[in-house]
């Protein structure tokens, strides 16, 4: 049996016995340190129940809107830039501020619609959406702008396809979307001549003729690709990735310390090592573990659930790793679903299309799994622990005979996914354990695997039925176990 991720089999024995959370967290810090729109913020007195959205609106940043409080409309979208523990690279995550607990932004850079431009000096995205008639009532607009901003920050020259799919977590009720897509497509790599590095340096043609517009809009421009200009764009500012809000240098060196904050009603724990997490779980098995809060915050808001002891898991690097083995992929249970999409793409490449079928199936389901803002924070562990029958991920994990690695201070437990779900929102996870990782086997010769989903709406909708089907054909094409 291969070792688990980030923790040795024997590490459990090394865990020191502590008996109370107060004792365990005696030395933990109680101060959140993060950046908002380039400015450093230190918070040591905060209501532990506030969401990121409530915090931002409370300090006067009312550009970010509340539309639904369930991560379904995208009006509250902000960008949280951080060093992704999975890839070790800076990632600009669009997230639903209405769901994000404030504790989740410690050590990160929160960028809101106010941070990227104003009426006098709008960001090119803001300018183009506005001038291109992409804003009518305007209530969805900040969220849409931040989704596009996240896309461009992560990839300054996105494909047409990437742009088209960048808004699966945003809704607009006024425009019919067409003008927003047109404005957004002006940034795709065919239309924006500018800053794609392949273009060679800073050579945006906007500088041509004293700033008289993009070469792609004039007949004198690049003749290779015929680009249809959908609305007049004579004086648009170019998008220059080099002049965007930088990732604060201080955050590159940010020391992620274990945090505890809150009051009698509610306490937040933010462990930064697996060991700390396991200790919390061992002392207090009822502690609510929270990754993206995409489920929990809805329970709190709409079902009046109270979680007096919540543990934020997003900053434990050990739970966010992955490793390719010869016959399986081991993936940390708390990788973001966005990362899981990318990991699965790599897995298909590595194992090939036949053996990689399970990963292609996961990737396919994730494509229509919630919106980008949710996939940026939600995790496989959340899907599994919630054990909701509507999860788009769980059927694949069951049908592929994935093994779940549960960890506790007492040691590891390997649970086949076929035995994991016991009932409605009930699982075989022992109360003092956490879901550490998943071992997803590759498909063997003769195996076929597909996943399907049908919902009312294609993007960002709960499945009516989802299914993963796998058959292993042996001799004479007879299915075998």
């Amino acid at each position, binding site marked *: 049996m291969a070792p688990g991720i980030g923790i040795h089999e024997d590490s459990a024995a090394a865990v020191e016995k502590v008996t109370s959370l107060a004792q365990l967290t005696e030395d933990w810090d109680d101060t959140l340190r993060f950046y908002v729109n380039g400015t450093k913020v230190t918070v040591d007195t905060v209501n532990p129940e506030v969401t990121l959205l409530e915090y931002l609106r409370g300090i006067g940043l009312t550009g970010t809107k509340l539309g639904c409080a369930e991560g379904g409309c995208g009006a509250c979208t902000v960008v949280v830039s951080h060093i992704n523990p999975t890839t070790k690279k800076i990632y600009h995550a669009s997230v639903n501020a209405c769901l994000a607990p404030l504790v989740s932004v410690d050590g990160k850079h929160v960028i809101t619609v106010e941070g990227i431009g104003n009426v006098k000096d709008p960001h090119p995205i803001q300018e183009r959406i506005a001038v291109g008639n992409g804003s009518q*009532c305007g209530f969805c607009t900040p969220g849409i702008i931040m989704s596009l901003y996240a896309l461009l920050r992560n990839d300054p020259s996105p494909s047409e396809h990437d742009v088209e799919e960048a808004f699966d977590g945003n809704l607009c009720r006024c425009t019919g979307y067409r003008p927003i897509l047109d404005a957004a497509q002006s940034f795709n790599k065919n239309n924006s001549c500018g800053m794609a590095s392949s273009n060679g340096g800073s050579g945006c043609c906007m500088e041509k003729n004293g700033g008289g517009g993009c070469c792609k809009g004039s007949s004198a421009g690049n003749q290779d690709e015929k680009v249809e200009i959908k609305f007049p764009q004579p004086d648009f500012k170019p998008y220059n990735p080099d002049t965007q809000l930088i990732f604060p240098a201080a955050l590159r060196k940010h020391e992620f310390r274990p945090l505890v904050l809150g009051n009698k009603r509610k306490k937040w724990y933010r462990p930064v090592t697996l060991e700390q997490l396991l200790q919390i779980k061992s002392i207090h098995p009822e502690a609510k573990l929270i990754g993206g809060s995409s489920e929990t915050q809805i329970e709190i808001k709409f079902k009046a659930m109270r979680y007096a002891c919540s543990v934020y898991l997003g900053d434990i690097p050990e739970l966010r790793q992955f490793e390719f083995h010869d016959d399986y992929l081991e993936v940390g249970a708390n990788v973001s679903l966005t990362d899981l999409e990318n990991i699965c793409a790599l897995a298909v490449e590595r194992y090939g299309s036949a053996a990689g079928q399970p990963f292609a199936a996961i990737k396919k389901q994730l494509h229509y799994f919630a919106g980008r803002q949710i996939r940026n924070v939600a995790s496989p562990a959340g899907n599994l622990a919630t054990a909701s029958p509507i999860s788009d991920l769980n059927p694949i994990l069951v049908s592929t005979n994935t093994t779940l690695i549960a960890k506790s201070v007492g040691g590891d437990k390997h649970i086949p996914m076929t035995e994991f779900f016991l009932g409605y929102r009930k699982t075989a996870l022992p109360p003092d354990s956490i879901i550490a990782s998943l071992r997803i086997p590759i498909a063997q010769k003769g195996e076929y695997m597909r996943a399907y989903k049908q919902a009312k709406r294609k993007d960002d909708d709960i499945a009516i039925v989802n299914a993963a089907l796998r058959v292993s054909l042996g001799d004479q094409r007879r299915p075998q176990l």
Partner: protein
Amino acid sequence: MAALTVSAQNAEAFLVGQKFPSPATLEGVMNALEQDFNLPFGVPGGMATYRKSLALGFFYRFYHDVLSGLQVKSSDLDPDVIAEIERAISSGKQDNEASVAYQQKILGKASPHVAALKQATGQAQYTDDIPVQQNELFGCMVLSTKAHAKILSVDVSAALDIPGVVDYVDHNDLPNAAANWWGAPVCDEKFFAVDEVNTAGQPIGVILGITAKQAEEGMRAVKVEYEDLPVILTMEEAIEAESFFEHYRYIVDGDTEAAFKEADHIFTGVSRMGGQEHFYLETQACVAIPKPEDGEMEVWSGTQNPTETQTYIAKVTGAAANKVVSRVKRLGGGFGGKETRSVQLAGICAAAAHKTRRPVRCMLNRDEDILTSGQRHPFLGKWKVGVTKEGKIVALDADVYANGGHTQDLSGAVVERSLSHIDGVYHIPNVNVRGRICKTNTVSNTAFRGFGGPQGLFFAECYISEIADHLNIPAEEIRAINMYQPGDKTHFNQILKDWYVPLMYKQVLEESNYMERRKAVEEYNKQHKWSKRGMAIVPTKFGISFTALFLNQAGALVHIYHDGSVLVAHGGVEMGQGLHTKMTMIAAEALQIPQEDVYISETATNTVANTSSTAASASSDLNGYAIFNACEQINERLKPYREKFPGAPMSKLAHAAYFDRVNLSANGYYRTPDIGYVWGENSGQMFFYFTQGVTASEVQIDTLTGDWTPLRSDIKMDVGRTINPSIDYGQIEGAYVQGQGLFTTEESLWHRASGQIFTRGPGNYKIPGFRDIPQIFNVSLLKDVEWENLRTIQRSRGIGEPPLFMGSAVFFAIRDALKHARKEWGVTDVLSLVSPATPERIRVSCADPIVERARVQPKEGEKSFFVAI
């Protein structure tokens, strides 16, 4: 399929060891799956047949996908079932030259929404963005959880014990019993329930807390005891129980009885369409600020109707209207949902502010908004048409029902509009149509873009489609031969002037290559067994005017300051539709100044009094003329200065005039001429004019799953001389997509057992997303014609509501595709498709062996889990 992720155990057990590529194996697995997923009709979550068909269909697809990779007999393989629908990149064209012929300096030219840049940078202020007031409280309404019940007791003691909870306000805190009643035109709704609740979501009281969270916690601690009373949810239940509001209207024209006797064919049908949640992105919100003197109150309410807000706030606070100012900066969408229903929250906040003498704020959570603020009316139409053998309609008889909910609200006018639009664009010499409002225990349904028009038009396109199928004549032809011609009279005796539907019908057919593509669709359908395409071309006319005559008036106030800048106030509310943009353009053109010099700050009852709601697509017509009228008054006074200083900027003119003691302010006014219809008599002119349009749509459906995609839509609208093509295109595209949602993905469902609405947020109520719009989305405006009889400002037509019905082209294209899908399996009887055409309805309307074996029948007395009202 179960309460947890489950594997299909019977199917697995059966499959092991069988020869996979064999029809017998396939059949065996399908049988086993039926056992594995034997859902009862009343299964929680509903959709038993559909869910079962998906389980079977997914295996069927998988099976053939696997087989396609093996060497098998081609007769065993069903290759068409494997592919799923994937969208292409969206594209589309707009005609940007449409207004060239009549552009002026400003009017007729494309320009963006005046607040777009503020909105895009987060600087635009909405109601809840107003900074917290000193001593402000937050309100959280205590809502009924029962659809119909006696209130036995309300115990707030536990709530008032919670730290941060300050007070509880209910009907006992109003100045008198009459103050608890609101609603127009019939004042039949209570702000706070007294003794009885008539719908789940009815306000009983409001808890005030220092923060929203504390108020919410207090609300949850209020204990209400009920005694259940019988519940009516649906129109069918109401009809059976004869539960109607008194309002009853009819239009009788010609002699239907005689015409039916002579008709070659008589066809009858029942058409049903669901309602629609407004889903404006900004929920209902209000900040009520009591003033220290004389009972004054200032209220910021997200409303389309500041005057009605003012009226009822005066009532609940016991003040005269002159002590109440109702103000609106902008709305994050309205669509009719804030025309009357916003008054409920504003009245409650004002009552609470009045009692506590502290500012009270409330912005509803999305679920509270859906529970309390009403939707588009679901409609049921029972119709009978007499038709000649060529397909000419000679008579229409119909009973039309709307689900009004527990109070009347605007239901009467909504039903009236459905009756005046039930002719579609078709000339029917003999008409007898009657409309009633069902009184039920649901949320009170209200105005929603189209206001009964789309429902009436839907019935028209339903009988057109069904006549076409009965007679086996293409629907396109039935439409063409019945279409009104210029000069024809409607069933309410209005002569059609500037009538361009026949022209646009022809233009859209040509410009979209409709007939060629129709042939290609036939060919596609021959070659595909599971994937089917369908097309439809749907025309529309929409009558512009409030049907309540007195509402067709507007006022405006124009100030020119002596630096030359201009402040305009008018009665209309900006809710994203671009009204203020059009209004500043009209003022700027009239005063011959740059548009940037004109500013509209807000809509408020102390600048323009006695305004009508911003509704009925008439706000540009009404307020535009009122502003123009005010500008003309000032222009008259400025004439000497223009003569004295030719070509001078306004700053110079205004400065000179001011020093000569010339009044640089004017109050403008306008009322729509000519109109005044009398119900019953069927006399007088109902509408000032009709906005018109035609849309052709093509769709593709996956009959195995009910999945679908809109391939292409071509829309042409007659907006007269557009004031601003950018704004009008925005209205057309937006309304179209909202209409597409109405007729496809948007389905409001009620939980039958509790009588509560189930679809309370974006999680289970699906408005169209980015990737639901037509893959090819072309829009144009009618041009190169004259509008001789159109006497509106700039000769432009109202555009807010009319394009919404164009979204139905997708519905009828789906219906067309379903016809082909059913024919594939030999089923040719006429399909009565209920709206919205959800993937479930699409799937279960198919007739293939998989869906047939998946059909689940109710057991004796078994009811569905959800119900559409």
